[in-house]
């Protein structure tokens, strides 16, 4: 086959960096985009840029948001006694789909992965501990962002639910966190089986995930 013209080859190269894209699918998508009207393509490019530029991470839980704090940390109705710890912001979407969880979240931003050089310092662990420690009477109100459910009296965190994937790395990370959190007098639980060992949250359906939440066990 003849080589692709340089601008298309460049587009294909960029698309190939997206998860799930190989040479074939990237080429197919590139040609699809080029067949679209210019304004449609511009709207798409604009939407990608706008999302990237306006999104930041929540200053409390590291979820994605376009404000200082995310919708969950701001919401009045959430139960501040529970924090569900997930690997990535997209996992929150899956837990929310169960409509079974009313607590808050904390996004780790990855899992402990020594082979990839990811140690505790690379994850949002200190900020989680701070959230748990800052809840005593000594925490000055002014330093706590007015965040619906988090902080404040009567909303002491009583349970941390570890919802990392049931893989070797997910388990190792959960055990590591449990060791740090338990001495703070907070109950630590882990999602129950139902999610297959070796499976991933991303691919668990809502019912499975709901059972996993219901049957979570003490660590």
């Amino acid at each position, binding site marked *: 086959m003849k080589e692709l013209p340089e601008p298309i080859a460049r587009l294909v190269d960029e698309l190939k960096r997206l*998860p*799930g*894209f*190989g040479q074939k699918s990237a080429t197919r998508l590139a040609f699809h985009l080029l067949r679209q009207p210019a304004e449609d393509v511009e709207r798409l490019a604009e939407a990608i840029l706008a999302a990237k530029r306006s999104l930041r991470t929540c200053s409390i839980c590291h979820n994605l948001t376009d404000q200082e704090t995310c919708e969950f940390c701001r919401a009045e109705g959430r139960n501040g006694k529970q924090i569900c710890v997930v690997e990535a912001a997209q996992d929150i979407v899956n837990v929310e789909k169960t409509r079974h969880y009313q607590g808050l979240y904390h996004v780790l931003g990855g899992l*402990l992965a*020594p*082979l*990839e*050089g990811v*140690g*505790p310092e690379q994850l949002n662990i200190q900020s989680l501990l701070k959230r748990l420690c800052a809840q005593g009477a000594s925490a000055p109100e002014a330093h706590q962002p007015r965040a619906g459910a988090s902080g404040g009296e009567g909303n002491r965190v009583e349970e941390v639910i570890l919802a990392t994937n049931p*893989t*070797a*790395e997910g*388990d*190792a990370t959960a*055990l*590591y966190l449990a*060791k740090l959190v338990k001495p703070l007098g907070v109950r630590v639980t882990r999602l129950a089986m139902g999610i*297959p*060992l*070796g*499976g*991933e949250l*991303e*691919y668990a359906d809502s019912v499975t995930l709901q059972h996993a939440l219901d049957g979570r066990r003490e660590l």
Partner: protein
Amino acid sequence: MPLVESEAIILRSRAWGEADKLVSFLSRARGRLRGIAPSARRSRRRFGAALEPLSHVRLWFFEREGRELVRLSQSELIEGFWDARGDYQRSLALSQVAELAELLLPEREPSDKAFRLLLATLEGFKGAESIWLPLAYFQLWSVRLAGWLPGLQECGRCGKSLGDEPGYFSVDRGRAFCRGCRLPGMRTLGAASRRTVVEMLEKPLPKLSPEAWDRRRAAELGALLLDVIEYHAEHKLTTRELLDEKA
């Protein structure tokens, strides 16, 4: 496309594409390989938990002519060693074992010795209270199998036996020196550590007594062995720093 069936130990496994896994493993029949496990993240039907790092499994895979990656077809768990990951330090040590195996074992060169070493090491971790003995055992034997083990019992300069004296070592010299011949910047390797080396090369892991084994000696020997590995492989070990920080 011939289907191969082999015992294997999973070294590393990570997300690949939309729902696949890229798995690196040491097979008894074909040596170290990497392959794709299709849909392994979406469904547990074919692979279950049998692709988790450091699992001892029975594996079926297709070799594809001219392709670097094999295609995994099925995997059955024989024994999982991730239970051993009760604490973070242990998981770091196990990760180092996987990193060394990936780095030092050549691809597609079956070696029953290497396979048995890895399996014995994982079993050693499982029973052991201290992680340092199985870790040092694996480090030492990996260096030995790679053919990089330096002379540690006689002085590399004057030839005198080191006996009960400490030896001094640097990677660029490749041998231990005696006190009289030592050069600035060399690492010290005590007589006890050198005796341990001899013992480890003579006895299988379960026969070594963990009581005679302390953390300091492991650190002394480990540092030297990892220096040797990083020097010859021209590669900085990712897990080394994490484990040092933690120690």
